[in-house]
């Protein structure tokens, strides 16, 4: 499967400004998409834009050299972006004299949600809408709020049209918020209501959208209910806490995992008092979050309490940010190098709560954390310069694994090493470079590194460890979905072996697994 690569780059005019050409295609039909807006953006402002012609073609005849992110957008399709900056992706590096052609950007037909928001007596209601989508992140199922450039709304006649949606499972809510305690009114008021008519998360009904399908005539009936105030104080024996500003959120209990935030407390102040107004009856989780940073030691403390709101205000819901009662952890890291500051982050397996601390220049770190099952990440945040090659807790290898921390605590030993660059290109079945493909390197069903191919199908991964790994590329699969352990397991037979020894491995050529094959597996994910 390893092949030689010839990219369609010709350095014809060494000093000429680079140019870029390509085509936008409908991902479902393979036909060209005309009048799509193609935007290429780079570190220097402003961006460049072109509109595709009747054959779906776009051209940027002369642009400054730089690292570019490509996106394409047209009404009727989901916006596609290739090479977003971040952990998983890189922009396309375009140098002086480059003349790039044959870039393919695929647009998936959008789904549209249309409907109306009404009051219990059937009158239209104009309000803010919130939309969540079920996604897989870091190998966990997650419910993520969608944040479009303009917030979703039900308009003056209560009607709404939400477009640009990829297929998936969604939850919709009509948000009713008041800047005064609603109890002052003599009547019950309208409360935030989840489709179709529940004021609690638990009663929200999912809206499933299949590819290219739309849902029309959704009717969200906003409910009237009594509402109460939840208040309390966050305190801590930790001296640093006095300087910190804790934040308090209200989450739906036993609803979704991890729970989407419902409300942020108002009236925050340094003394740690909080108040959350207009809470309908139901079961909730009040969670406080505080971050301290003293002499480079960044610590995140969380405290939470389950509450039930019935028919009165709840006062004195106090939270204690106390790490003393947690398990005491120590650690020693070697091979830090002179790069960016390194940190360790413990992720609670069930709740996803993260607790992080920086590693001191001498390699030492300390943490205190409630007992439970955790996974540990150690690195520099960008995962490019140096990475952990081994992590031991109390003598046991825990790299890429969830492990238990008991009340008696323990010690970590971490080895860092300089990363090696793994480069290559992803090709489609027809042998053409595939823009935006997701590349994953893994071992024992645990992802080690991911990358998104740039607009020319090229990718770069940074890996510190040595040994034999599996490697594969997928067309149009979210990198966060691709690292789901059962997803990787399902494609083990279609992956290639990647051997990393002392030097940098040769450039890799990968044939992408088509979207249709991936969809069958995604449908069966737990």
């Amino acid at each position, binding site marked *: 499967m390893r092949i030689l690569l010839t990219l369609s780059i010709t350095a014809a005019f060494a000093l000429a400004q680079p140019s870029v050409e390509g085509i936008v295609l409908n991902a479902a039909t393979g036909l060209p998409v005309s009048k799509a807006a193609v935007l290429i953006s780079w570190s220097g402002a402003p961006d460049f834009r072109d509109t595709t012609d009747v054959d779906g073609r776009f051209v940027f005849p002369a642009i400054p050299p730089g690292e570019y992110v490509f996106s394409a957008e047209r*009404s009727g399709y989901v916006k596609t972006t290739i090479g977003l900056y971040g952990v998983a992706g890189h922009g396309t590096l375009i140098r002086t004299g480059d003349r790039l052609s044959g870039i393919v950007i695929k647009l998936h037909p959008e789904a549209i949600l249309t409907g109306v928001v009404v009051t219990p007596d059937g009158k239209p209601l104009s309000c803010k809408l919130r939309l969540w989508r079920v996604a897989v992140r870091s190998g966990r199922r997650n419910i993520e709020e969608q944040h479009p450039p303009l917030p979703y709304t039900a308009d003056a006649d209560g009607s709404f*049209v939400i477009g640009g949606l990829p297929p998936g499972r969604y939850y919709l809510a009509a948000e009713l918020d008041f800047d005064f305690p609603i109890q002052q009114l003599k009547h019950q008021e309208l409360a935030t209501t989840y489709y179709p008519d529940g004021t609690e998360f638990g009663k929200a009904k999912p809206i499933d959208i299949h590819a290219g399908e739309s849902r029309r005539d959704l009717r969200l009936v906003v409910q009237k209910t009594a509402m109460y105030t939840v208040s309390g104080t966050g305190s801590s024996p930790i001296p640093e806490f006095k300087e910190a500003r804790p934040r308090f959120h209200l989450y739906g209990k036993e609803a979704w995992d991890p729970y989407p935030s419902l409300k942020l407390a108002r009236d925050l102040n340094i003394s740690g008092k909080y108040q959350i107004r207009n809470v309908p009856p139901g079961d909730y989780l009040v969670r406080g979050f505080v971050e301290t940073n003293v002499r480079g030691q960044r610590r995140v403390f969380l405290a939470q309490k389950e509450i039930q709101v019935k028919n009165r205000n709840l006062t004195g819901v106090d939270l204690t940010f106390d790490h003393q009662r947690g398990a005491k952890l120590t650690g020693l890291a070697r091979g830090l190098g002179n790069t960016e500051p390194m940190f360790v982050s413990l992720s609670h397996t069930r709740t996803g709560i993260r607790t992080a601390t920086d590693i001191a220049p001498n390699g030492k770190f300390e943490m205190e954390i409630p007992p439970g099952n955790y996974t540990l990440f150690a690195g520099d945040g960008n995962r490019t310069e140096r990475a952990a090659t081994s992590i031991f807790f109390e003598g046991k290898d825990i790299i890429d694994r969830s492990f238990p921390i008991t009340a008696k605590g323990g010690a970590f030993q971490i080895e860092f090493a300089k990363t090696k660059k793994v480069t290559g290109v992803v090709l489609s079945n027809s042998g053409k470079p595939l823009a935006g493909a997701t590349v994953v390197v893994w071992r024992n069903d645990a992802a080690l590194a991911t990358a998104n191919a740039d607009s020319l199908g090229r990718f770069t991964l940074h890996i510190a460890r040595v040994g034999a790994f599996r490697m594969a590329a997928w067309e149009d699969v979210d990198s966060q979905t691709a690292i789901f352990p059962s997803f990787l397991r399902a494609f083990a037979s279609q992956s290639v072996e990647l051997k990393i020894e002392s030097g940098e491995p040769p450039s890799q050529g990968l044939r992408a697994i088509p979207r249709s094959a991936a969809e069958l597996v995604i449908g069966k994910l737990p």
Partner: protein
Amino acid sequence: MTLRLVLVLMMVPVFWAQSSPRPKPRPTFQGKVVNAATGQPIPEATIVLAVPPERHTSPPPTRVTNTDAKGRFALWAVPTGAYLITASRRGFVDMGATGPYIKVPSESNEEIVFRLVPQAIIRGTVEDEDGVIPTGASVNLRRREFHNGGSHYKATNEARVRADGTFVLGGILPGHYYLAASSAPTGAIEPRQERTTIDTFFPDESDQASARLIEIAAGQELNGITIRLKSERLYSVRGHLSEIEKGSFQFFPRGGASPNQLRPIVNSNGSFEIRLRTGDYLIVGSATQKSPPKSTVSIYQTVTVRGDMETLAIHATDTTRTIRGTVRTEPGQNPGWNGSQPIFLLSSMISDWSNQGYGVNEDGSFQGDYMSHSLVDGEVRAGLYLPNPELYVKSIRFNGSDVTHQPFRLPYEGGEFDVSLASSAAGVSGVVQTAKGRRDKASCVTIWSTNEPVDGSSAFSATVPLGEEAKGSFQLENLPPGEYRINAWAEVGLGLASYPEFFKAFGSTAIRLTLKSGTQATVTLTAIPSHAWESQAWKLR
């Protein structure tokens, strides 16, 4: 027998308790909320009492209540202080924080009446010339607004075009509107773009002057509006920096038509290219001088684009944008301000925030720059602030033409003013009261001259607003002697009260005044309540 007596004795205190109930406390204030179109009461309206924003020392300790089935509300035991009170109800236009300011303890027990206007709704679709739904497009309504005696159209309601091409514009007040659709600003350079979509007015016009004025009644629903976004050809404008380097500049369409950022990339050799629609542009930016001392210079020039341009030279500005002038008292006397010099004022008729003042020197001269684009994009008025009440403005000439009390256009190049003042000005003071005889605190008073033809825009007029502190009294000074009418309107905006078509409509009910040289008159005015003048305002809007 004994038993019966005991029973009777026990019942007596109960009877007494019933006969003298505890007096019910009086509410701090009360009022009602009615439908402005029908007069019907509005139940379940929300009344919010808030600390006025300027006293935002603590989170607003808001009191809220709601109206009963008869549209009535009351609030008890409100602490002493000044408050802003607002009423709102779903389906009615949100009046925002424009509700009346009230004081506790109240000066009277008059009830507060809110008249909410049922919202009008416009529904329709937007597409481009090829029938494609434009991503990120929006529609907006433009209504006539009034400033400094002039009027212009300003966007009042806006809605986005949704994924299926439809839009719903709500919260609309009755009035006359233009409806326009705009595509989303991109902020990006489009090197090979041939055409660009432009703001398109209903039904199918590229400029507002030929668009159809839509009349909207209270609570009306207007459906089935379709706007097809027009496009216009773009021309290539190439040029270079002349005697300057490291230039960074933007093209602003005059009249503020295009929201797009029009900033070209300037190559290292000083050349640039940009694609523009036909029209007039203002080029604003900065650069560095090519030759020593290499100081920073401003770019400020205009260009008219009619087709492709090859050699547009961008240079350091040599336009001064300076105005200068002289103030004299007739006939040619030395002004002798005695430490209270006048201030010469230029006021934009399209923006409340674009007034500029120039201090007049001891010798009567004044001079200064002007930076605001609004001052050159629309018409302006010239006037004077005169601390000496004995003086009034006799005439103002600009570059030789008479601009006394009339709007004119200020050129980019600036110019010269010649101001003549006269002594023995007249004045009027007085109080404004409501129809019920209370002193009105939220009104405007306008006085206008009837010496000249009523339709002439050069007739003198002056407007003063009455604030919370004025307690219903007003004073107008520096008036030329002559025949006048004077009137007051409750809850009116300064812009509307100073608009001639508005105040002249009330000429028959206004008080007549003859002001003789150097005299002071005193009048008591009854403010025209808002429901009585609103129909006139809706006609103008």
